[in-house]
């Protein structure tokens, strides 16, 4: 095998390229005006709540500097919560609190944080310290997700999340992204996280890929991916499909986390999901998109029906 695959072989494998994704999926099905809904986490959350799509609970929003004093009242007696910028990117500016000790708050690292520091952090978020372009931002406080321990062993330092690509309302491909030591706790595949392709039929792992190479076990925790089965699989697919109704985006990536108590929750939506999910599944997207294009125009279907069809057609 040389350095490059021949285009005809890639086409035979049904690999979706960036240009085709941009022209035929994003430009055609994702209207520009819908982007703010997914780029702004608060709007996503409010729309989700309205549509009845499960998301982490919203505790409160701070829009203006003068509201910062009210932050403690918003938090009230809660011991676990997250403060994050509404338009932040790359995970910057997210403050996670896992417990309380008297007047102090405790970070996951065990470090104690005073109420003053929490207010200052919120103030920094508002002034745009963490948002791209330095725009003034809003801070939102949401409930901390209690990760399902079934998956914790497949991730190092970070949180595994399930990415489902939804095309015209049908789930077409899914993977779970596991942070590694070399990805620095981040779940981006090109930074060294492990992508595990998931069988749409049952949520079982198909294969695992790190940096483009097939692997069998997690490089840090040593757990074999063969046994990996994502629980609540049907609910996850239902949730992802619901995001299509909610946003109107024809090609979207739904990032879903599993909460111990609440089950699957949508963490984030992406209007331009990347192509690495194909590598994690070792399968091209193109053929699946074609299948959807064929069956899509026939009749309007409910979420339930769409998930069923996808599970039948794309499962193993």
């Amino acid at each position: 095998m040389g350095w490059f695959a021949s285009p005809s072989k890639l086409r035979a494998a049904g690999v979706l390229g960036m240009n085709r994704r941009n022209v035929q999926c994003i430009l055609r099905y994702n209207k520009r005006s819908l982007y703010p809904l997914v780029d702004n986490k608060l709007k996503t959350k409010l729309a989700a709540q309205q549509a009845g799509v499960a998301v982490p609970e919203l505790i409160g929003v701070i829009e203006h500097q003068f509201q910062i004093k009210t932050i403690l009242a918003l938090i009230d007696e809660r011991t676990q919560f997250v403060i994050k910028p509404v338009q932040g990117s790359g995970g910057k500016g997210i403050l996670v609190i896992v417990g309380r000790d008297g007047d102090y708050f405790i970070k996951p690292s065990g470090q104690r944080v005073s109420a003053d520091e929490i207010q200052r952090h919120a103030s920094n978020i508002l002034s745009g310290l963490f948002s791209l372009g330095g725009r003034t931002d809003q801070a939102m406080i949401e409930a901390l997700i209690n990760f399902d321990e079934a998956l914790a062993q497949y991730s190092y330092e970070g949180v595994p999340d399930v990415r489902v690509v939804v095309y015209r309302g049908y789930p077409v491909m899914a993977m779970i992204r596991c942070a590694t030591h070399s990805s620095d706790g981040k779940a981006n595949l090109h930074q060294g996280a492990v992508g595990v392709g998931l069988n749409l039929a049952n949520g079982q792992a198909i294969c695992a890929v790190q940096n483009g190479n097939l692997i069998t076990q997690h490089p840090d925790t040593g757990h074999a991916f063969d046994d990996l089965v994502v629980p609540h699989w049907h609910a996850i697919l239902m949730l992802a499909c619901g995001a299509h109704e909610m946003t109107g985006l024809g090609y979207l990536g739904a990032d879903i986390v599993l909460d111990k108590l609440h089950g699957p929750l949508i963490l984030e939506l992406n209007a331009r999901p990347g192509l690495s999910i194909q590598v994690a599944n070792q399968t091209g997207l193109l053929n699946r998109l074609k299948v959807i294009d064929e069956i899509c125009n026939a009749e309007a279907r409910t979420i339930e029906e769409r998930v069923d069809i996808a599970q039948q057609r794309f499962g193993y």
Partner: protein
Amino acid sequence: MKARIQLYVVATLLAVIGISGALYKNISLGFPLWPGESRNVWTLQSKINFMPTGDPIEVTLALPEQHGNGIIIDENFSSSGFGFVINEEQGRRYARWSRRDPNNKAEITLHYKMQVVHDNKILSEPPAPEGSPAKPRTYPSERESLRAVYDHLSEMSGTDASFTQLVLSTLNAREKSQDVSFLLSLNNDDTLAVTAKLLAYRGIHFQIVKGVYLQDGRRRANYAQLLEIYSLGQWIQFNPETGERGLPDNFLIWQRGGISMLDVIGGANSNVEFSMVVNTVPARTVAMMQDLSSQATLIDMSIYSLPVEQQGVFKTLLLIPIGALVVVFLRVIVGLPTSGTFMPILIALAFIETGLFAGLPMFVLVVGVGLWIRYYLSHLNLLLVARVSAVIIVVLGLMAFFSIASYKLGIDSAMSVTFFPTIILAWTIERMSTLWEEEGARDVIKQGGGSLVVAVIAYGLMTNSIAKHLTFNFPELTLALLALILIIGQYSGYRLSELYRFRHMVAVQHKQRGQ
């Protein structure tokens, strides 16, 4: 599909308009499609040396004149510490340097550099002389000899021209008559002075032509003189040393007539020396300069009708579509990651100013140091606008530092860092450092490297002489470029980088199928 057909129609239309416009210009108006033949452009440097006497200094240098055989494309003067003006007196141009500095007694050197095309065809006639030539001043002792020589030569020649030639050959002959030898010794062996007296006896108008013999790589050359007489309505040149008639092929005329080439007041031992090199430049460039100065009817409605400075701006601006094409091609077809879509073009434009070999290391150096400083600034928790502003100031400081350091070290080229637009550098640094924080160093190297590769390729194409020639002379070809970009814009096939990225998938699938 409808949109696609529309796109092809628009693209075809644009391409047809652009290409037919270019063809019309080529066929009907005679614009050459290729850079074509080149002309020799001489870079001539004149060096004026003198010792100041302590009095106020005034140096006057006659500049090449309009009736000469040179087209001046560009000229520069060095005038450090001097007041400097260019005067025009009676149709002649003079450069005048002046200074009042009694203490400085070191030798002074002044420079005048010009780029000139030598072309004997453009020679024009100075106005005909008026009145009869002035009677020459002669020494009483030489009058008899002059008369004898004059009578002798007059008998032998019919026309003024043949008389002049005869005078010169007689004065330069190895075997001289007694009278001729006497005349020369009385006039300090100055052939021209004796010739002048003899010509005045005959009533011929004449003047001295000063100029330079062009020869590539010549240094410390002195100016040469020709003798020019007015006869039968035209000026005829003679070489005073050989009597040869006509203008020598490589003689660049500086001054026709006039009193002196160089006047130095307040200085002694003054002289002017010339050094010269020749460069090959496309004929078009030269022709354009000529057309501009004379007539521009054919090209009245084109970029050529703009002032030369604006033309220069357009020359650069019209290269941008080529850079855009490179960016589109490398991003869509090849899939090179770049930071910012058009940053590479701006970097390429900067490289055009600095030259690639000086520009590339300077760019990497400034951005590298800037990144490091930006890293420190990020610790101070500044807002974005303040942070970018701070980086701009730091970049300015860096540029000043590198310029001064390189100047002191004697590396001229490094000073060209100032050609980089400060804002571009600052933004590049800001962008790179954001990338660094969000995605890590790998992405910075990937995108930064990608941008530089695109910039270098764009630079290569934008400095290509054919590309330069075509964009400047056929701006309508930009429409064809636009069509090409539109066509690439709907390409939905694989990128070259994807053939690499997904190469394992094909292999795996083959394996699976094989099992």
